[in-house]
């Protein structure tokens, strides 16, 4: 059976496990109809021209795992940022792991979506926010149809969350192929502040497809710092659909570190519903082999006096392929917009490919919009210079690449995340140097 058919026919089984009389379920059913119409994206769609899911979708995915799989903390510790205290919302094969998690309801809710969906005290937040910013394209619709579990984070007015929150989705590979669809809802009210680290991690070489939807609502003057660490096994594919709704004076930054996996597709969408908003989208991609990372970003400037800053750096080795499609829309009303986009790529091998496409749709006449895109190689003169000073080629290349990517790392606000990323980069580049530039 084709995966699409399999998914559609499994819906009845899914409905058995949830409350089908809720308003939410109407949203799900509608989304399922959408997905039935749209199906999985194909390369015929402009937005999917350079990323094909065909090979991935041929896997015979298990869609709902009935087993409760568990993992030992010692075996997965390395995937946590464990040198600082954090809240943790951890899932194993799509199911909540209370053992690995550390949640709270003390003055804020850092917990599970399934419990928020089922308890009446959360109903007003769910009603106001659930599926309100997610756009119903193919894969988002699919996720919405089955939306039941994921992180639920609600930070009330003026609350500054005292430590970062980690959202980690493990897949154990207990099945030959596993599909999971986490759904995260993050509501940060006026003047509140939160830092979140998200990771999807397969624990075996079995095939995994994660189709994630994350909705983030940042109220007036709220601050959200979001870090996505994508460094998965080579058979694990990820489609990350993130939608950010910002109100006036809010600052939201999303850093995406894509260091591995099979196919990684990031759909990162920002909607600026207010004035004096700052949206920051940054990413470092370092891949090799036949890995593929696709960044599709959208910043929609709807109202005046807002800013957006995009900075994506990519380093591609072997036969790896990358896509950067950065779309900026400036509405007619959005005067005095300052939209900045930078995308720089280094191809280490002759066989590596990057498809880069800035897309600017500007309808206002008093704006500053800049974009720069470069594709290059490492500077041989710089390498010789470094060698002459005693730095071997491998270390010299690593230093050049790290320096190249460093503009993105500079704005990481959690030192432990920064040092973790630095270590991951050193490991990826096969060197043992400090990089403290």
């Amino acid at each position, binding site marked *: 059976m084709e995966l699409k058919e399999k998914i559609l026919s499994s819906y009845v089984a899914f409905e058995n496990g949830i409350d089908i009389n809720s308003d939410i379920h109407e949203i799900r059913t509608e989304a399922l109809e959408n997905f039935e119409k749209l199906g999985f994206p194909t390369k015929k769609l402009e937005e999917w021209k350079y990323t094909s899911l065909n090979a991935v979708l041929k896997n015979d995915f298990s869609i709902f795992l009935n087993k409760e799989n568990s993992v030992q903390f010692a075996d997965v510790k390395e995937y946590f940022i464990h040198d600082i205290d954090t809240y943790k919302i951890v899932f194993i094969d799509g199911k909540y792991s209370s053992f690995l998690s550390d949640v709270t309801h003390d003055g804020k809710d850092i917990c599970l979506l399934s419990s928020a969906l089922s308890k009446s005290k959360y109903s007003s937040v769910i009603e106001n926010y659930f599926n309100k910013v997610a756009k119903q394209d193919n894969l988002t619709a699919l996720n919405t149809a089955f939306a039941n579990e994921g992180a639920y984070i609600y930070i009330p007015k003026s609350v500054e969350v005292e430590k970062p929150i980690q959202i980690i989705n493990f897949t154990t590979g207990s099945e030959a192929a596993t599909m999971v669809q986490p759904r995260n809802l993050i509501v940060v009210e006026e003047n509140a502040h939160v830092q979140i680290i998200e990771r999807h991690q397969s624990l075996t070489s079995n095939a995994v497809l994660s189709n994630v939807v994350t909705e983030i609502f940042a109220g007036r003057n709220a601050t959200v710092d979001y870090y996505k660490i994508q460094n998965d096994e080579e058979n694990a594919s990820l489609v990350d659909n993130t939608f950010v709704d910002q109100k006036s004076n809010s600052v939201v930054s999303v850093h995406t570190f894509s260091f591995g996996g099979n196919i990684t597709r990031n759909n990162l969408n920002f909607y600026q519903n207010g004035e004096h908003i700052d949206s920051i989208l940054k990413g470092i991609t370092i891949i090799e082999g036949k890995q593929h990372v696709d960044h599709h970003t959208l910043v929609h400037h709807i109202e005046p006096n807002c800013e957006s800053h995009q900075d994506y750096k990519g380093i591609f080795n072997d036969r790896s392929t990358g896509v950067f499609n950065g779309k900026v829309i400036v509405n007619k009303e959005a005067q005095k917009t300052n939209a900045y986009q930078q995308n720089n790529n280094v191809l280490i091998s002759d066989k590596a490919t990057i498809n880069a496409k800035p897309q600017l749709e500007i309808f206002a006449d008093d704006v500053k919009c800049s974009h720069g895109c470069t594709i290059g190689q490492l500077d041989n003169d710089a390498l010789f*210079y*470094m*060698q*002459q*000073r*005693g730095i*071997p080629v491998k270390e010299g290349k690593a230093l*050049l690449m790290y320096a190249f990517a*460093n503009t993105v790392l500079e704005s990481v606000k959690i030192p432990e995340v920064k040092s973790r990323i630095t270590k991951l980069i050193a490991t990826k580049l096969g060197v043992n140097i400090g990089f403290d530039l």
Partner: protein
Amino acid sequence: MLKINNLHAKIEGKSILKGLNLEVNAGEVHAIMGPNGAGKSTLANIIAGKDDYDVTDGIIELNGEDISELAPEERAHNGVFLSFQYPVEIPGVSVTNFIKTAINQTRKAKGLEDMPAKDMLKMIREKSELLEIDRKFLSRSLNEGFSGGEKKRNEIFQMAMLEPKLSILDETDSGLDIDALRIVANGVNKLKSKDNAVIVITHYQRLLEYIVPDFVHVLYDGKIVKTGDASLALELEAKGYDWIKQELV
């Protein structure tokens, strides 16, 4: 220390060096002068191991060991230092981190541990004072946006930090005003010892007023055609290179 015998080299099929001989001993300062295109920078790059050139014949020995098959970093680990005519800009890497990495990679090649941070800082402080380098300068990206003088001073600073056996200064005087020239030359002189040697490549006699050579060589058309003492540099300054060309005919 350095012994070059019958060196022939080509770049893109064009012969640049055509049987060059040079011997430099510890404790000596040699100047290599010559008109544009004579092969001065080619010689410097070949000693340092740049692989853009085809060395078709000849021997390069450092302390009795043939270095012609060694990678540039291995030559550096053996004590070869080249002060670049055009130092490369490396955005995002600070001067301090660069030199730290260079020193520790060199130590690693010799089987030594990283230099303790305290010792490194002390050394950086001493050597930057020697070259009259502002400390703020050390946290800037390597050579990025540096003036010509700053770049050259930074080269000599790195030389001071790495303590090479053989230093080749490739047109270190170009782009320097008289004050910077004095600082750079003073630095080089202070680093001179009976155990190391310096090759100064220059067009002009000016630098040699400060760094006094034991030998002056004239490089012309890929060969050393004349060798003398410091007075040869003065003669070249006064008379140009034409008389040498005529002598050769």
